[in-house]
């Protein structure tokens, strides 16, 4: 299973790219843990995770073809 992750805003500075893919994450909590291990700087930033364009309020299961997005605080307008 491969989960595709798109990255926005200041998270692109920290992660260094705008897309990632993981084959071994089953839910959003696992994803967060994995990301904070790989990118310790992420702990400084509050970010949301959207699954298929809906912000996950709680831990959410991920399945193949889900589109996951990492969303730092919005600053439009």
């Amino acid at each position: 299973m491969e989960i595709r992750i798109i990255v926005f805003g200041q998270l692109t500075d920290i992660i260094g790219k705008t897309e990632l893919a993981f084959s071994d994450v089953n839910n959003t909590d696992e994803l967060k843990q994995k990301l904070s291990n790989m990118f310790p700087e992420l702990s400084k930033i509050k970010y949301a995770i959207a699954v298929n364009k809906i912000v996950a309020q709680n831990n959410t299961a991920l399945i193949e073809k889900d589109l996951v997005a990492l969303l730092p605080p919005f600053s439009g307008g």
Partner: protein
Amino acid sequence: MTEKKKHKVFRQGAITANFIAESIAKHSGKTNIGAHDIFLGQVRNDLIENKTVVAIDYSAYEEMAEQKFHEIREAAFSKYNLVCMHIYHSIGIVKAGEICLFVFVSSKHRTDAFDACREIVEQIKAQVPIWGKEIFEDESHVWKINN
């Protein structure tokens, strides 16, 4: 007479005064409108740690943002008595002094336009996945924070 025609919200680069004028002029045929409230967001040359912002580079999760704009729009039409509403937001580079957000709300009586316009602007800032990268003269940047 309520018009709910959808158009794309995002526009490449700054929103020009001429574009705004054309939008206003298009409403002269809608003679049930008595009040328009227009909000324009303009890029400021803020001084941040001794460096001056010269532009903001806007990016967005466009598919999710268009969906959010649609929800904001539907909610405003059901809450307020509006004749029409248009939202435009820049994507890409907008220089200091240029316009990056254009919210245009029209109603029969002024209270609806005023209330709705303000609420829509707050919702855009809080709920829509858009990010502003504030660019300095030396090409370094910080990420904009909304208050």
